[in-house]
């Protein structure tokens, strides 16, 4: 018979004590597995925020972590808002011109025709040569400069040429318990996600929303997969966001759901995304023009005429986008740093430049997430792991007590084995094997129990909160880059080591059994 069979038989002989010991170990291991797995889930759910395709986050001055949590994970409340015109400084001329068409103070067309008219008149006068021509050219150039200054749509944004992508986020509304995010179609149409930023968003149903649709106008929406499931939303449904809170008043303007995102495992699974222009057209989303601060007026350079205000205030056609003077954004997602050295340098210097200004701040969301983990999550995890490790050690001690208490009753049995020719080391190994079997079996049961608990929790709570699904046989991710294997796989050797340590005392007692004295007792 093998030593393993002898050890197993001894365990069976003390079945009640063995079961209790195994259960004790299973409890400790299940807690440890649950902690490790949930930590992995939390880590993954936060780290997916590092793979959403943007590398800089711009928002109002305030807490960097709050800005990150609010804009990336849709947690907490927005700090404040920043002027829409500030967002346009990250855009290039073509985009700016399109947006500035909706400015209350839009005198672009007027200035353009004035310039064109002046140019024609000068041409007819034949002032294209000599000193007169030089003066005319200088005057034209001056007019051109004035036109550009007074028409912000005629120039690139201050940072525009170096920004690959700038996407605004508008937060504050809710649909049921889910955040409503106003944004542009670029979020799902242009932004690439994934570890290499090369994956496009996919839709399980429908399509991305448009800036303007012939049927739905500015009121199109896309919902995340969890929203669709939990709120029972389908393509074609009309949804009305609530203003400012989960139980805020319902906006009158419905949005048509045109697409449902395929599950991404990101916070986007738990949000409703509406077209930005439609967001602005909902009641209470327009900033009153008379309250525009001085610094915003400086940026605009052109103040709206009273007759424009009288004509436009409160009477916008539902298909006319809100003037940019009445718009604010909660945050801006930036993708910065192309292949050229200047862009890469810009990616490093841009946050400093923004932070030195008085309007906004710029953060690297990845850094903030890592800091958050390192400051809060990491220590909590270590504490939980230490506690569960102590539970396992206590369970190991129960193995020691169980086996050691049995040694008195088994002294004769050990002596018989020795008399039959088993050496001292053989009986020592039999006892250690018993300890290892109890430990590993308890650990295996604990692993199954821990994963069962986590899978249940995933189905009932985790998936709903984080969008992350935990499969039964899904191992926790590696705990560190320098240790690229799941901590769960280390449990087996750890348990064996623990078993050897706690089994050593009774094993030594067996080793030192006086055969002659113990026989016949």
């Amino acid at each position, binding site marked *: *018979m093998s030593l393993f069979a002898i050890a197993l038989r*001894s365990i069976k*002989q003390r079945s009640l004590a063995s079961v209790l010991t195994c259960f004790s170990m299973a409890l400790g291991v299940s807690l440890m597995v649950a902690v490790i797995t949930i930590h992995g889930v939390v880590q993954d759910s936060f780290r997916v925020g590092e793979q959403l395709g943007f590398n800089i986050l711009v928002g109002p001055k305030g807490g960097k972590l709050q800005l990150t949590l609010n804009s990336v994970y849709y947690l907490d409340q927005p700090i404040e808002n920043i002027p829409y015109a500030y967002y346009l400084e990250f855009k290039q001329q073509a985009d700016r011109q399109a947006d500035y068409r909706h400015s209350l103070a839009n005198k672009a067309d007027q200035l353009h025709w004035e310039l064109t008219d002046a140019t024609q008149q000068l041409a007819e006068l034949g002032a294209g040569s000599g000193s007169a021509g030089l003066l005319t050219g200088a005057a034209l150039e001056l007019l051109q400069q004035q036109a550009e200054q007074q028409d912000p749509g005629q120039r690139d944004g201050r940072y525009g040429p170096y920004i690959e992508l700038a996407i605004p986020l508008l937060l504050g509304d809710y649909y049921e318990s889910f955040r409503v995010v106003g944004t542009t179609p670029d979020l799902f149409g242009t932004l690439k996600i994934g570890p290499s930023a090369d994956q496009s968003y996919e839709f399980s149903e429908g399509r991305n929303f448009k800036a303007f649709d012939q049927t739905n106008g500015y009121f199109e929406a896309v919902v995340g997969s969890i929203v669709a499931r939990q709120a029972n939303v389908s393509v074609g449904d009309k949804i009305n966001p609530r203003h400012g809170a989960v139980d805020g008043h319902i906006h009158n303007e419905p949005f048509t759901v045109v697409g449902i995102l395929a599950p991404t495992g990101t916070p986007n699974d738990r949000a409703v995304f509406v077209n930005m222009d439609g967001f602005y057209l909902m009641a209470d989303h327009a900033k009153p023009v008379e309250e525009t601060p001085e610094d915003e007026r400086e940026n605009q350079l052109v103040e709206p005429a009273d007759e424009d205000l009288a004509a436009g205030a409160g009477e916008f056609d539902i298909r006319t986008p809100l003037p940019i003077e009445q718009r604010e954004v909660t945050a801006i997602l930036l993708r910065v740093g192309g292949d050229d050295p200047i862009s890469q340098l810009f990616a490093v210097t841009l946050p400093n430049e923004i932070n030195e200004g008085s309007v906004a701040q710029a953060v690297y969301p990845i850094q903030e997430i890592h800091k958050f983990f390192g400051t809060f999550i990491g220590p909590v995890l270590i504490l939980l792991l230490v506690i569960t490790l102590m539970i396992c050690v206590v369970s190991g001690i129960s193995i020691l007590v169980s086996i050691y208490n049995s040694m008195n009753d088994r002294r004769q049995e050990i002596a018989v084995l020795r*008399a039959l020719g088993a050496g001292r080391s053989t009986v020592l190994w039999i006892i250690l094997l018993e300890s290892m079997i109890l430990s590993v079996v308890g650990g295996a049961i604990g692993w199954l129990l821990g994963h069962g608990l986590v899978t249940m929790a995933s189905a009932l709570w985790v998936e709903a909160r984080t969008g992350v699904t935990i499969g039964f046989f899904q191992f926790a991710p590696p705990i560190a880059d320098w240790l690229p294997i799941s901590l769960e796989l280390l449990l087996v050797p750890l348990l064996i080591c623990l078993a050897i340590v706690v089994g050593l005392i009774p094993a030594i007692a067996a080793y030192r059994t006086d*055969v002659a004295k113990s026989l016949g007792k």
Partner: protein
Amino acid sequence: MLELLDIKKSFPLPGGRQLPILSIPKFSVAEGEQVVLVGRSGGGKTTLLHLIAGITRLDSGQIIFQDKSIGTLSEPAYDRFRAAWMGYVFQTFNLLPAFTALENVLLGMTFARKAVDRGRARILLERVGLKDRLHHRPAAMSVGEQQRVAVARALANRPRLLLADEPTANIDPANQQKIVDLIRETALEEKISLIMVTHSTEVASQFDRVDQLDEINELSAGAEPTATETT
């Protein structure tokens, strides 16, 4: 087959003193010979068997088994030697309660570093009349049946020397003779040398050779053993 020369054995007492138990100038058993050893209780009969089996170690002297001196073997080597060449039948059977009759016999083979022969184990149990009890545990057997399992276990490795320490002490009178007959007949069949310790004069009278421990042990010759200080 077996020769003991000038063996001495003492046991430690509290206070560092030693209690001499055995001092045997010469004791030998021929191949195939059956010897019964009788003596007073506490005289050292079991100790002598333990010394021969290597369960306890000599203080001095030689044990020569098949022309090989085994008294100086290391403990692990003696354990293996005992498993391979000797069988031991204990007074209290010493079957392992968690194992069946068949498994107890197989345990006798496990530590001899030979292939475990389940067939031989079955044959031995059949020979001792336990063909239908192979898979029964000791708790489900009578005392007589348990001792027969113990005999089968002692014979498992085809030993050259069988040591039986009062094998009938815990057996009812009706079965005592059966056990003695079983041991002697099996030893005869397989040409195994036998040393049996017994208090029973009826058992002793059946043997051709009866040795009195008091006669071969110098310490027992008419005097109580005296404790001595260790040097």
